[in-house]
């Protein structure tokens, strides 16, 4: 654990003492080396849940893939941000990199926390660098509004969580996950217990986001710079899913009656947000709403608490993290050339950027859950477990998958096919950096297909 955490912390002095010429080279290379080291966390050769543990941090098969994804994402964010920060003053570049590294540290500690208060503090701490990245480096005036929505939606959800955790601490005298997984399931249906259940869950439902409280997500994703969008889509949403999976273990049997409104919102949200995707004019907004759609499936899966649904939820979280982040990178390659996100203005790119069109194609296919991609594995597990829970959900999830396929294809056809507008014929060709960035997203997601038990959590 420390062999990843200490190098990550020491990358902050590296950015400040590094020679100006070699800042980006060194930070990218070091973060890739740290990501390679983080693959050690995949070693789970005992049946016991918690590995690599010390008193405060430990890894279990749920946090394992999320941690590796977090460590993998930092070099990708650095690769993606290198271009748009090229013309900024050096100190601002260093600040940006420091913020990304800080986010990484907080996320590693959040996912490996064994104590719920440490998890909560890190959960909140990730908000600050993300807020700074969105509001300082976003490109439009709406970034201020986006930052406010992002911050306050999440805070409104998580302050009740703090109270709930303090109540639990008062009751149990411990908040260690090692202990809490063994408490007996006797949360009875009194009204105060219902409030406590809500207080525990609402923070993570807002973070996921659940359909009714999802308004912060399109704003934050669209207004954030590329690294902000990547970290939001790939990891911060999964903080909500991870937290929910950890805390829902303690909330039985009250969950069986309390989860209905949220399950309905989640499953309905899949259809609604997929339909909204088909009507979007802004490319990043389309990808943001598709994130809400996928996370709706994950939220529904976590709420029904079956082994297959948990396996599907973790699989879909990882798969969506890689693919959604890749989609944002692709849209950023368009944005850096045309400085617009409007779909009808960035059309017909296949003729001028054919290799990038291949990447667009593969990633859109993965997004629509084409076999044998990980997205399909996750969605299949979730949809079958939802079907077992209630036969009627198949209608909603089936329509949702159809709409997912249609908006993914719509995104591909709009950006790649069709006549190329006149103003696009003189854009720069794709850089090696951009291709590398996309392949570093695609290759892990293709390789994990060969060994999916790595990301299927502990219930597989």
């Amino acid at each position, binding site marked *: 654990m420390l062999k990843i955490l200490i190098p990550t912390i020491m990358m902050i002095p590296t950015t400040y003492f590094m020679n100006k010429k070699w800042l980006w080279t060194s930070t990218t*290379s070091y973060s*890739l080396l740290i990501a390679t080291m983080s693959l050690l966390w995949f070693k789970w*050769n005992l049946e016991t849940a918690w590995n690599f543990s010390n008193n405060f941090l430990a890894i279990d098969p749920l946090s394992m893939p999320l941690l590796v994804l977090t460590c993998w994402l930092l070099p990708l964010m650095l690769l993606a941000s*290198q271009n748009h920060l090229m013309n900024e003053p050096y100190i601002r570049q260093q600040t940006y990199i420091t913020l990304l590294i800080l986010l990484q540290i907080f996320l590693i500690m959040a996912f490996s926390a064994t104590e719920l208060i440490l998890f909560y503090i890190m959960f909140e701490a990730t908000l600050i660098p993300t807020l700074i990245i969105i509001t300082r480096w976003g490109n439009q005036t709406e970034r201020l509004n986006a930052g406010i929505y992002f911050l306050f939606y999440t805070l409104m959800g998580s302050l009740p969580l703090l109270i709930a955790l303090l109540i639990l601490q008062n009751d149990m005298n411990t908040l260690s996950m090692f202990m809490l997984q063994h408490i007996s399931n006797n949360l009875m249906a009194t009204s105060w217990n219902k409030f406590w259940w809500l207080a525990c869950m609402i923070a993570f439902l807002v973070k996921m986001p659940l359909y009714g409280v999802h308004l912060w997500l399109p704003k934050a994703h669209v207004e954030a710079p590329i690294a902000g969008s990547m970290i939001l889509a790939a990891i911060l949403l999964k903080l909500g899913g991870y937290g929910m999976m950890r805390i829902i273990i303690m909330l039985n049997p009250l969950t069986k009656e309390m989860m209905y409104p949220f399950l309905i919102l989640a499953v309905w949200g899949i259809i609604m947000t997929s339909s909204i995707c088909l009507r979007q004019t802004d490319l990043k907004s389309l990808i943001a709403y598709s994130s809400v759609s996928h996370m709706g499936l994950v939220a529904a899966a976590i709420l029904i608490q079956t082994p297959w649904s948990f396996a599907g939820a973790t699989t879909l979280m990882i798969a969506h993290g890689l693919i959604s982040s890749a989609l944002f990178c692709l849209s950023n390659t368009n944005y850096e050339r045309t*400085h*617009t996100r409007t779909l009808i203005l960035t059309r017909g790119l296949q003729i001028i950027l054919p290799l990038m069109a291949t990447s667009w194609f593969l990633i859109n296919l993965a997004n629509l859950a084409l076999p044998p991609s990980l997205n399909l594995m996750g969605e299949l597990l979730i949809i079958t477990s939802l079907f077992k829970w209630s036969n009627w959900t198949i209608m909603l999830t089936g329509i949702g998958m159809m709409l997912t396929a249609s908006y993914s294809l719509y995104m591909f056809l709009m950006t790649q096919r069709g006549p190329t507008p006149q103003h696009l014929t*003189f854009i720069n060709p794709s850089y090696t950096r951009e291709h590398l960035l996309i392949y570093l997203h695609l290759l892990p997601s293709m390789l994990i297909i060969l060994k999916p*038990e790595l990301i299927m959590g502990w219930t597989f």
Partner: protein
Amino acid sequence: MRTVHRELSGIQLWRRRKMAARSIGLLRRLRVWRPGVGAGCQAVSSRRVLGHSSREQAGSVTSAPEPALPIGHGDAPPQEVMLYDKNPDYHGFSADPYVDVWNMRLAFFCGISLAIVVGSVFVHYLPDHGMRQWARREAERQLKQREAEGLPAIDVNYYSTDRIALPPEGEE
């Protein structure tokens, strides 16, 4: 779609130069014909022509019509076009060609050769993940053993009932 009205900024000047350069470039390509040169070289040379002509035409551009596009969000740095002129092997990392090449090499080496190739080999050769294959082998072995002994395949109770301590009868 909002249209933003601005004073003539650097971006607008650059766009006008580009528009003019496009029309000049088109005219040049129609007039000039270089025998024996492949299509690729033609494209590169027309790009160079564009780059040079944009600089040449900087002064006399103010009368060119503004393209009827909504102005893109944010300002485009004008030196984007020049980067390939200065460094034809630009990889997208840095304006300095030496740093660019080394950044590309290190990123590819650490990312692909180390993280993906060596990492995949490591992950592939990890021992039995979560003891799943062991569990399968153990189950088959136990089944075989129980069938040989004539016992039922699996016990009805999850654990043996004499480990449960019930309170004595008649006590509340």
